[in-house]
């Protein structure tokens, strides 16, 4: 068990950056600026990438020094660190990332060494795999041991149903058995608990006002 826990994949990639002295722009400063301004909710690029549970990006510009008597040492390059926890296999995920978020990928990775050879989803997947670092220990706290892992689409649907049902229960207290039964059947027809296409929660939604997608008006 390393990069994978059942159907969940832990991607860790260190993408080397061009030296700060190349050109007129500082790759580190530009990338940090782009990343800091990218929305982290459903308006962000990563919300469009299927099967992403969580991901993070940051620039690693050196190792840490622990004080004397530790050795004082430095990295020779800066690295764009990309970690993602995804559902399913890595290569289709990376291809989906390019297909759904290519402008964001180009903007963030454009200063990375070797990225000039990336021009489509296949070369992007190959490039990230070249930068991949093996995960040595992966802990999954979102799935109980022995249970099957759920995809982000299943998870978003479950959260939608949970919220709708919690409201349903509160709103239908004190009614007769027949009334609750009829209302429950209408409720199930509306929320469609087994239909992952909708209605459901939007990936990345950070507010209840715009969380639900695909509901009948």
């Amino acid at each position, binding site marked *: 068990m*390393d990069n994978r826990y059942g159907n969940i994949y*832990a991607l*860790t990639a260190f993408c*080397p950056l061009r030296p700060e002295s190349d050109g007129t722009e500082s790759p580190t400063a530009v990338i*940090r600026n782009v990343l*800091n*301004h990218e929305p*982290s*909710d459903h308006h962000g690029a990563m*919300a469009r990438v299927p099967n*992403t*549970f*969580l*991901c*993070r*990006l*940051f620039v690693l510009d050196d*190792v*840490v020094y*622990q004080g004397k008597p*530790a*050795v004082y*040492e430095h*990295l*020779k*390059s800066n690295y764009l660190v990309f*970690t993602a926890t995804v559902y399913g296999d890595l290569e289709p995920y990376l291809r989906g990332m390019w297909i759904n978020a290519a402008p964001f990928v180009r903007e963030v990775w454009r200063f990375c060494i070797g990225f000039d050879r990336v021009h489509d989803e296949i070369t992007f997947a190959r490039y990230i795999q*070249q930068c991949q*670092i093996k*995960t040595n*220990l992966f*802990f*999954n*706290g*979102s799935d109980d*041991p022995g249970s099957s892992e759920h995809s982000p689409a*299943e*998870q978003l649907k479950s*959260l939608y*149903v*949970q*919220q709708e*049902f*919690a409201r349903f*229960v509160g709103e239908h207290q004190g009614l*007769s*058995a*027949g009334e*609750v*039964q009829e209302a*429950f*059947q209408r409720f199930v027809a509306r929320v469609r*608990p*087994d239909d992952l296409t909708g209605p459901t*929660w939007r990936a*990345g*939604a*950070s507010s*209840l006002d715009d*969380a639900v997608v695909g509901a009948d008006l």
Partner: protein
Amino acid sequence: MSNISGKAYAWNVLSPINGGRLIALLKKLSFRLAGVFLPNSLKGLRTLSTIHYARWVIVRDADFPCLSPTQPREKLRYSYMFFFSDFNGAWEEYVDAFALAIPGSLNKLWWHTVAWPKVAPMQPFHRYIVRNQLFTNHYYSAYPMASSTDVKASRNVRAGVSKLGAVAMALSPADFQKQYHTLLKELQHELALIGPTPIVSLAAQAVEEREREDTHGHS
């Protein structure tokens, strides 16, 4: 900079490993064994219901990708352990909960790292974490409004609703009511209403504050 995406916090800790290549190799081996024997060897982590995911990655200089002949190869005396975690709650709560719930496991996981102070007493441990934390520039969660506990609870709710929904029409009102009440009893701890967090991300909060200042001026 944003270590926060709604209820999730991205925690990155970098630790140099003492003792040369052999110790790094032993650590990798012990992690592999811990992975193989999960959940027993790391069952303490499961008692922390606030963790979505966590990973440990050990890197030596030769592992850093070198993609061009002009890129200098890294030359480092230490191997380094990267710890990446996605958890719910505030930094102090998590760090303290981590230390109090699984102090022995933490000391084993950080075994042979340079200047590791051990988990207790807490103050040196906090100082170590602050000194070794790396900040995230962009953090995304598919469901920033949900905690790890919400995630697991919601699956049970959907399964229960789906199961009753499949038979509801065929039941008499009395039988339906019986099964409905049974379902509510089973799900009573899992029907919490979720709300957004006050701060979705530090970057978004900074933008909001700046816009507020631009509109109303400095107070």
